[in-house]
């Protein structure tokens, strides 16, 4: 550029021309001038262009700077290249593929190529090259100043050295301190190089590797402490109340510390530190400040954290605020019931403050409307299950009073209202501890409920007490038995609300009934039969198959399987199992999780449930993830040699389909085919039972499958068995009662356009007796079936 410029020389141009590597042109001209004009020579080699040598420092500076510049340029080139590669990669990923699978295959290849060709390492290495270039430049700078001014050079050099040391330390520090944030890809590079060079020297490599190779994070805190700190940070710093609420809610899962700061006995991991606890409580108090208490949602979130609540007794203030907020919240929505429950639990957990619950209910029941009291009672009912005895005792009188109050209300009697039921169940529960008062309680509650439901409810409370061997309850129990026997028949169509209560009661009754100490076996069988009938009827209701029904059924089954020594139980279990399976098959068995519990129970009934039941169970089991292995075991147990032969044709077919599925899932089913085919062809009955066309179709289908898929030996065996079949005795009657020939049926099956019927046609040609197929024909059959 300087050559192009033609205007007058300025300072910059002058400076640029001073190339220290070349002889000084001005001096050179001077020397020539001297020689020409004065015939004098200057003996300094500096002025002789031939003998000119640039000073060492200049050469160093030039070399360093040029290298630095070159390196930077190379980095720029490579970076542009890499950007192009990445763009190309993204473009190839965006290119449409024939199918999603093809895309996945392509992606697998290209993305593994990225790692195989060390793309990340390459891009990570580029900055390192640039760092090198910078250091070269700095060193060059230092050398440059050396010849000008050694003090300045020293300054530059020391600065460069300092930066270099800092660079090295900051690069290597993450290898030693995991939380050091100065981590760069260079570390990975160093690790690879070290491993590559020192990998073969056992001990050194181990030291080096240990120094740099630990890529896995080792947390300095226990998981509990980590979680705790994170939550504390969220609560302290996040502005949005939803976020804070979520964090507060999550605190519930942290290990608990009691108010002294010691971990509770059952907590092993750690404890919520008092500091964090204080933060949490402060935030909770903020959340519950009068301004916010109108917002039930935020309050709910605070309260919903059960374990958090149990820690809150450190702060009485919070407790009071919660209770006040509950009092003030005028809209008692169903979600508030949950809050009440939680609050009651909180109060129950406070041993030093047991009276508050009572006071609360006592003070409120006068003021509050009945629905509200009922809601409290509902909540109370949940809590009372594992509440403290003393509180129960104190509540007893109060509940009786409440019951009276409720009974004064004009509620329609036909509808067993939830409120009444709850109050009655509380009363019965409380009263069951005192045999003397019990008839009175029964009478009182009996007015409130449907008699049959009352009987079931009472039974569920009395039976456990009676079964525990308390003779005082004998009369009550006898009465209840009578009531139950008459009422169970009337309870033929349970509605949803009754079902929920009834299922609970039934399950509660089952436990004592089936205990070995309970001697009245006959009656327990009767009860079980009644329960089975009740719940089987419930299953036929067209409403969605609810959880409670399936729960009670599985419990029934489990109980029955435990009492396997009683023959009658087995019959009931079988009936129940069959019904469950039939109900299951009618529905989408992929989503009905509850029925799998039942299936799991039935799996244990191996000895007592008939083959038919077990096979019909197998069918749904096969389709559920995780169950094929169980199905396999069950299948093996069915096909045990000592079992009676399976004679029902559709069972055979189902077994075949199941085997087919098992085969798909990698089980070795070939011997099983042999069992099925063998058993069924040796025994003639299946032919006789074959009365409809569809059953014959099943059979033919089965055989065609078997022929298309099983091995040569099995095929031979099948043919041998087929020869034994008394073919001439076949009297086949179709649906219209017409006699049909086997050939007709076979052709009908063939017309269903299933390629696998090919072999069937082959033995149609041979008129009943199938030929032993040669290898070629068999292959063709397999090939056809594969289409």
């Amino acid at each position, binding site marked *: 550029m300087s050559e192009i410029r033609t205007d007058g020389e300025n300072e910059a141009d002058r400076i640029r021309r*001073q190339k220290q590597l070349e002889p000084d042109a001005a001096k050179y001209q001077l020397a020539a001038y001297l020689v020409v004009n004065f015939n004098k020579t200057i003996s300094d080699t500096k002025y002789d262009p031939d003998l000119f040598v640039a000073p060492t420092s200049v050469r160093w500076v030039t070399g360093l700077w040029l290298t630095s510049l070159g390196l930077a340029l190379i*980095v720029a080139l490579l970076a542009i290249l890499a950007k192009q590669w990445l763009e190309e990669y993204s473009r190839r990923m965006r290119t449409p593929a024939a199918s999603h699978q093809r895309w996945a295959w392509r992606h697998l290849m290209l993305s593994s190529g990225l790692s195989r060709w060390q793309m990340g390492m390459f891009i990570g290495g580029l900055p390192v090259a640039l760092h090198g270039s910078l250091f070269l430049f700095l060193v060059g700078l230092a050398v440059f100043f050396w010849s000008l001014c050694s003090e300045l050079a020293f300054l530059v050099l020391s600065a460069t050295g300092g930066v270099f040391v800092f660079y090295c330390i900051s690069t290597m520090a993450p290898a030693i301190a995991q939380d050091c944030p100065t981590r760069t890809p260079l570390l990975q590079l160093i690790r690879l190089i070290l491993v590559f060079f020192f990998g073969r020297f056992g001990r050194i490599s181990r030291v080096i590797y240990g120094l740099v190779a630990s890529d896995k994070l080792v947390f300095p805190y226990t998981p509990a402490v980590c979680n705790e700190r994170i939550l504390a940070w969220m609560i302290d710093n996040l502005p949005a109340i939803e976020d804070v609420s979520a964090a507060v809610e999550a605190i519930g899962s942290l290990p608990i510390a009691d108010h002294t700061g010691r971990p509770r006995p059952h907590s092993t991991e750690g404890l919520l530190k008092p500091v964090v606890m204080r933060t949490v409580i402060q935030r909770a108090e903020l959340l519950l400040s009068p301004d916010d208490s109108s917002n039930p949602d935020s309050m709910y979130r605070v309260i919903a954290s059960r374990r958090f609540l149990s820690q809150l007794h450190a702060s009485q203030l919070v407790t009071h605020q919660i209770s006040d907020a509950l009092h003030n919240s005028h809209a008692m929505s169903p979600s508030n019931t949950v809050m009440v429950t939680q609050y009651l639990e909180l109060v129950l957990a406070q041993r030093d403050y047991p009276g508050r619950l009572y006071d609360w209910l006592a003070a409120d029941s006068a003021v509050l409307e009945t629905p509200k009291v009922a809601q409290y009672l509902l909540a109370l009912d949940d809590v009372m299950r594992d509440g403290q005895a003393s509180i129960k005792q104190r509540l007893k009188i109060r509940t009786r009073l409440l019951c009276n109050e409720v009974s004064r209300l004009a509620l329609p009697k036909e509808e067993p209202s939830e409120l009444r039921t709850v109050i009655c169940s509380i009363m019965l529960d409380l009263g069951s501890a005192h045999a003397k008062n019990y008839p009175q309680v029964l009478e009182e509650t009996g007015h409130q409920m449907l008699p049959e439901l009352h009987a079931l409810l009472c039974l569920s409370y009395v039976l456990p007490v009676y079964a525990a061997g308390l003779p005082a309850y004998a009369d009550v129990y006898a009465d209840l038995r009578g009531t139950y026997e008459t009422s169970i028949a009337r309870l033929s169509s349970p509605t949803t609300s009754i079902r929920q209560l009834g299922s609970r009661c039934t399950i509660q009754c089952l436990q004592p009934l089936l205990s070995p100490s309970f001697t009245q076996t006959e009656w327990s069988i009767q009860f079980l039969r009644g329960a089975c009938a009740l719940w089987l009827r419930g299953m036929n209701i067209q409403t969605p198959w609810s959880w409670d029904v399936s729960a009670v059924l599985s419990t029934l089954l489990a109980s029955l399987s435990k009492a396997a020594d009683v023959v009658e139980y087995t019959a009931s279990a079988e009936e129940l199992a069959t019904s469950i399976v039939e109900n299951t*098959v009618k529905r989408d068995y992929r989503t009905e999780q509850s029925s799998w519990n039942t299936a799991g129970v039935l799996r244990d009934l191996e000895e007592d449930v008939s083959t038919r039941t077990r096979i019909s169970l197998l069918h749904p089991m096969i389709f559920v993830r995780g169950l094929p292995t169980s199905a396999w075991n069950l299948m093996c147990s069915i096909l045990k040699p000592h079992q009676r032969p399976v004679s029902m044709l559709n069972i055979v077919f189902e077994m075949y389909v199941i085997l087919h599925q098992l085969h798909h899932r990698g089980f070795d089913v070939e011997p099983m085919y042999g069992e099925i085919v063998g058993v069924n062809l040796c025994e003639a009955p299946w032919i006789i039972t074959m009365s409809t066309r569809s059953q014959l179709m099943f059979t033919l289908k089965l055989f065609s499958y078997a022929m298309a898929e099983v091995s040569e030996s099995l095929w031979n065996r099948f043919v041998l068995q087929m020869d034994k079949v008394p073919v001439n005795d076949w009297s086949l009657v179709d649906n219209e009662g017409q006699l049909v020939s086997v050939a007709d049926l076979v052709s009908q099956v063939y017309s269903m356009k299933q390629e696998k019927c090919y072999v069937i046609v082959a033995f149609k040609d041979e008129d009943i007796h199938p030929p032993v197929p040669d290898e070629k024909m068999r292959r063709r059959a397999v090939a056809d079936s594969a289409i």
Partner: protein
Amino acid sequence: MATEFERRYPPDRCDHCATRQNVVVLISIVNRLGEETSSNARVWRIYRDRANDADQDVVDGWNKTLDVLLIFVRAAILEAQLLILSQAGLFSAVSTAFLVEV
């Protein structure tokens, strides 16, 4: 009741045996199961989306590194050039070449 996931990736259709007496329906089950990795199965769609996300992350990260690098190299060259200009013109030959670019 379908979750967001199920709505985005509907499960592959599979007939279940509504009537067990029907051969055809049963056969269709037989043929349908075991094809969960067929060419347009759900799992591939999920894989495609997830893999694209993962790739996006990696490639974006690299691109950012490279961008910073390129900007820095330009700055460094400019810097070097200024230094060279203000000093004895050691690099005048080189720097003039870059002067054109800048």
